[in-house]
């Protein structure tokens, strides 16, 4: 891009400023537009996404403040999805075994007759 370090950082800062303004504008548009007002195709999607990222940022701020107060934040209370998945698979297997056991009992009853 350039060998001049100062020029490189200036470019970076300029990019950052420009992007910052664009993102803020996108957030404003995304928040202002209801679904009935969205007629902008891909640009409207970017605005909608920016508005959602803004909401997430505000949630992150609230979480950080809560953590600073020593509270447990919501995201930390969530269980591990992978572990939950394993628990479900084990439980489902138990259900299948229950079912097989019931079928075996039925067969034994029929044989007893």
């Amino acid at each position, binding site marked *: 891009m350039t060998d001049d370090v100062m020029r490189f950082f200036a470019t970076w800062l300029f990019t950052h400023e420009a992007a910052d303004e664009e993102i803020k504008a996108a957030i404003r548009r995304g928040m202002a537009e209801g679904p009935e007002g969205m007629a902008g195709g891909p640009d409207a999607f970017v605005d909608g996404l920016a508005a*959602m990222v803004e909401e997430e940022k505000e949630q992150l701020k609230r979480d950080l403040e809560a953590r600073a107060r020593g509270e447990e934040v919501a995201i930390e209370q969530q269980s591990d999805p992978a572990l939950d998945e394993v628990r479900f698979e084990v439980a489902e297997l138990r259900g299948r075994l229950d*079912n097989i056991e019931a079928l075996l009992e*039925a067969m034994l009853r029929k044989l007893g007759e």
Partner: protein
Amino acid sequence: MASRSSAIVRVTLGELMRVLPSARFGLAPGPVRRAAWARALRRSFERLGPAFVKLGQLISVRPDEFSAELVAEMQGMQDAVPAVPAAAIRAVITREFGAEPEVLFATFENEPLAAASIAQVHRATLAEEYRPVWGETLPAGAEVAVKVVRPGAAASILSDVEVVRRMALRFAGTRVTRRFDPVALVDEFAATVDRELDLRQEGRFADRFSFDFRDDPKVQVPRIVWTRSTSQVLTMEFITGWRLSDLEIARAAGVDCKGLAIHGATAFMRQVFVYGRYHADLHPANIFVTPQNTIAYLDFGIVGYLTPEERMNITQVMAALVYRDPDRALRYSEKLGVHVPPGHVEPVRAGLGRLLDGDVRPDGTRDFAHFGLGFLKLLGEHGVAIPSGYGLLIKSLATVEGVARALYPEIDIVSTAQPFTTRILGQAMGDPVRVRERMPAAVRAALRVLTE
């Protein structure tokens, strides 16, 4: 089998004769004539038994292949049939478990709760406690619903499927079937029925559904009692509540119908866009609102599955609807198997644009059914074949919208979809592989903007 073919022809011709006067003996205007033929077909399907009732239900979700009149008529298909005598149901249970219902349950009611074409439901109570796959243990004495496949239903349906398949082969390629492939339709129908005839599949989906919504106290699914279930008998928790036809009573009892409508629509979006597996038969009889202010989902006989790739493409199509982007809708529909012939792309795109612009109700909310079913019809008019999963999903979304509107008429299902589609597509944009692929182009675009 020949006699069954004759019976089918006799019943169908008989019903067609009955509607001849209202069709003015074929001289009535097109829509009137088609409505009369559709009515005759619906009546004959109801008379011909479970296989045809199911076939009618399948036709009701394919507006791309059948006329609007036929689809509307089949949507009104009654799947309520006279109950089988209790003795026959008790015989099925005894055959399956080798014991009388009174041995298996603390109590068993002979009077059925509901009777449909494939199965009949009886109330009972558990003799001993049961720990289900997911959720709290059901105590001894807990009320359960025992769903039993009607005796002879499986054999009669499978035999009818064979007969219908032979008829479909005969009709294939004729003028009658120019808009659809009858053999493919029958094969799809056979696969659906096959799933419904093994009640364990329904039970497993219910368990999975409970697990998927384990963090959502407003969603309730009957817990399955696997020790009292087989392919022919499914025992599940009995849930009491109000059907959507009794909402006034529910409101009077303090149920928050507006909140549940939004929550129900959100729950469906979660099934489709997050999990890729969804309840595809959400008509009003399969949903309750409960005194605990929850939504109870029943009857998981018809379900839809999406591969991760299909899920992403469906999300893109929904995002196209949310953000009114016809190009995106067509691009990702193509990836879902909706191939528009080159010569038809422009008219289809124009029609899609009109649909996207015209799907607003007088109250300002978006109308998904108008868009979704209109899109299927538009594709049908241009001779575009619709993959069955695509049609089923659109119909399911339209049904969910109808159900949600019954609870809360001002709900906007498209706006409900917005956070899901936006978040999922946003996550996809952050996929490292995708970022690596697109980074050079993104840097070039950023520099271009800066230099401008």
